[in-house]
């Protein structure tokens, strides 16, 4: 019944609108508007352009200032501040051009609307003007590109020797994190030996893998270079840590990386934002399927000494899953036992 009433209402409304349309077109025929070059609407449209300019201009400035804190995420990495500089320089340059050209566009539209007595200016070309507005944008753009390029080469420069390598691997639909352990080297992986527990496919024929450990969150030290070694094992993903101005695709079959230095610990950021609940997050920004929107991973930034302490406390993958010792080649078993400390327990048992 209710639906029927809605349908009837809509039909009635459409019928009324149609009637208004018919009557107004009949009136305009009766008035002989159709023979004039322009109708009264010309003035209205011209005025509306000015109104639009003022109204939208106001909304743009008002909202941009009012919401600044909300859309401008705080920065927590070294290159992040360079990024901010680049972003806001570009914003200033394009903002000026944006405001000027939009004003000219709508002002001209209004100012030079049709008047019966006036005639348009026959002004087909002016090479000097063309040259000016080819070269001025070219120079401005060249400056923007050049500064951008310098930041870009900084950001993408090869990782320094002392960097903290951490592996982050994307899969449908989560991230997993692996640390290289005491030797600072991530062990090799092979996707063909992945199973439910060994989700990375850690290759136990590689000595470097024995002290590798995994952790449920991404933990990094403040003030030290960190390199994300990024992988994906099924489809494309993309590591995005917005507060660090960091993004890099995770590609199956092609390891990628991103090196950066965090400048604020989680605690510091909590204090700065006055939000004790705050956490840095990693998101996925490359469409990867049904759960694309749910690939959240917490990222914790610690002071370097806290980080060292936490790092030393971690048990390696082999320690937590001793059954994988059987995957270690016979000639390396002793070394694996030594490195993981598993050997001692075994010896104790034997004694």
């Amino acid at each position, binding site marked *: 019944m209710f639906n029927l009433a809605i349908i009837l209402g809509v039909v009635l409304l459409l019928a009324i609108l149609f009637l208004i349309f018919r009557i107004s*077109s009949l009136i*305009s025929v009766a008035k002989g508007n159709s023979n004039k070059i322009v109708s009264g*609407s*010309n003035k209205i*449209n011209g005025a509306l352009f000015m109104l*639009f300019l003022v109204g*939208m201009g106001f909304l743009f400035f008002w909202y941009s200032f009012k*919401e600044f804190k*909300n859309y401008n*995420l705080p920065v927590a990495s070294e290159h992040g501040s360079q*990024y901010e500089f680049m*972003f806001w320089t*570009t914003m200033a*340059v*394009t903002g000026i051009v944006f405001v000027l*050209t*939009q004003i000219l*566009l709508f002002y*001209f*539209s209004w100012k*030079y609307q*049709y008047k019966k007595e006036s005639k*348009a*200016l*026959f002004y*087909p070309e*002016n090479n000097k003007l063309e040259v000016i507005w*080819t070269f001025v*944008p070219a120079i401005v*753009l*060249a400056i*923007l*590109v050049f500064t951008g*390029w310098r930041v*870009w080469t900084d950001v993408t420069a090869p990782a320094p020797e002392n960097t903290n390598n951490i592996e982050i691997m994307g899969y*449908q639909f989560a991230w997993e994190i692996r640390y290289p352990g005491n030797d600072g080297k991530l062990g090799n992986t092979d*996707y*063909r030996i992945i199973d439910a527990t060994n989700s990375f496919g850690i290759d136990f024929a590689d000595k470097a893998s024995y002290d590798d450990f995994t952790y449920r969150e991404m933990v990094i030290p403040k003030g030290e270079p960190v390199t994300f070694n990024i992988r994906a*094992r*099924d*489809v*494309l993903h993309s590591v*995005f840590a*917005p507060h660090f*101005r960091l*993004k890099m*695709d995770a590609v*199956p*079959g*092609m390891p990628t990386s991103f090196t950066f230095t965090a400048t604020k610990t989680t605690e510091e950021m909590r204090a700065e934002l006055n939000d004790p609940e*705050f*956490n840095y997050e990693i*998101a996925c*920004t*490359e469409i*990867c*399927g*049904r759960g*694309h*929107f749910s690939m959240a991973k917490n990222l914790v930034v610690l002071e370097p000494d806290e980080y060292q302490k936490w790092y030393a406390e971690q048990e390696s993958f082999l320690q937590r899953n001793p059954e994988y010792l059987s995957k270690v080649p016979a000639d390396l078993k002793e070394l694996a036992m030594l490195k993981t400390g598993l050997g001692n327990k075994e010896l104790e048992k034997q004694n």
Partner: protein
Amino acid sequence: MSTATEVNISHEVHHDEHHDHEQSFISKYIFTMDHKMIGKQFLVTGIVWGVVGVLMSVLFRIQLGFPEANLEWLRPLLGGWLTEAGKIDPEFYLALVTMHGTIMVFFVLTAGLSGTFSNYLIPLQIGARDMASGFMNMLSYWFFFLSSVIMMSSIFIETGPAAGGWVVYPPLSALPQAIAGSGLGMTMWLVAMVFFIVSMLLGGINYITTVINLRTEGMSFTRLPLTIWSFFLTAVIGLLSFPVLFAAALLLVLDRSFGTSFYLSDIYIGGEALPNMGGSPILYQHLFWFLGHPEVYIVLLPALGITSEVIATNSRKPIFGYRAMIGSMLGITVLSFVVWAHHMFVSGLNPFLGSVFMFLTLIIAVPSAVKVFNYLTTLWKGNIIFTPATLFSIGLVSFFISGGLTGIFLGNSVIDIQLHDTYFVVAHFHLVMGSLSIFGLLAGVYHWFPKMFGRMMDEKLGYIHFWMTFIGVYLIFFPMHYIGIAGFPRRYYSWTNFDAFSSYTDLNMFVSIAAFVTVAAQLIFLFNFFYSMYRGKRAPQNPWRSNTLEWTTPIEPGHGNWPGELPKVYRWPYDYSKPGAADDYIPQTVPLSSTPESNLDHEQELAKQEKLANTAHAKKQF
């Protein structure tokens, strides 16, 4: 060469003899070879696709703006695509954004815009009887139709249409295990795209050939309206870039169905390791964007060409910097092929390559800037008549500025690190590519409707349509910049899993409401379009007092366009408000020798030559 000319002549003679013969319904409306009818076929099909594509966006805007909404009442239409709680299924959400992108980019803005107006306007504006090959032209439409049927059917299959984003990056698009849409739906997507590419190539070859070979006497390249220049260059871009998409699609088909490893390597999915090794998903991205970026200009250039024509006509001024406009379009055409990897700054691309593409990308902003300044100068000191087409053209320039400037952020690789795949990108390309091209399409429809159907569209409804759409588009897409700067990733079903993206529910709601109102405003256009087709006011011979050749044909031109001889062209198409001339326009068919009062110095010379040629011609006759 000589045979071609002969064929052409006999073709013309044929038309002169039979120009008023009766055609059967099928040969007139369905398997027609008349470029005008083919143009209308593209237009109507494009509009149908537009309705489908836009309705899809309404569905996902409901999800984004009103995540709590219960859509149970849509169950008869969506069936299993709704979750038990009456919400859109996350995978269906991805299918919606994928199909929305595919439909709008290819079926509406490529076929619907370039297909319609290249077909309709090229012969009319260059003074030709028809396209170089009417038969190929017919094939072009019917391949497009076939492609449409396949793409449309894919929406209704059980596993759903392709859902890996309109770019369909493998491995997601190659592995049915990864997402249901990569099953049959993806196969149909690929088949449909192959037919689509065939259609575009047949059309493109035809446009190029026609523009080069069939211009009427006097219609040199420097007298072509800018519309034709834009269609010509668009066809060139399409012809060079679509085959690469074809190659990309073919390799994807091989990977999907024949066990090759072009794009696949090191994949463990669904509890098993796949045998594929050595492929690279990046290869696909290179191939895809080698078309994908020029594609942006394929939808952009025709819209800009239409705008040039409409703005010049209705500000009663010559387009400012005709040569600079052509030059900038040529620049854009060439540069459009060497900027593709700016879509891949964070794909793992070599950073050095990233720098190169950053430089090239920002160069392309220069010709774009020149175009904007030229439009502004054309409006300056004009005598502007606001027809609905003018309004849409001015709106288009506004979008070109807004969306073009945000491109400078995204083209800068370091800024792109943060903004890549966020709503900033969505805002950018919906303004500069989506809305701009739609406005070009609408401006074209309003401007050439009298020629197409012999009737006028209602002006007042056009004004209401424009203002609702123009304000609406800004209210939809401008806020997305803020959402994007805040880091909200695109193609997200919901943002509540992240603290960082949990704000802006109010703004998303606002955007959705703006979208619904703007979509509703399109009903005004649909009504105006179809109603005016049958009941609109009869069109006069030259309703906009325009210079170009199409207005010299009969009000409703038959097959062959001009009943008698083809018109001769004596001047460029932009002699508006020429000092000394009685009227504020001089059509291209008016000889210079008959307008001594308004000729410029160099034109006086040409007028003398014209006179000599005429007398020589006259002597021969006697």
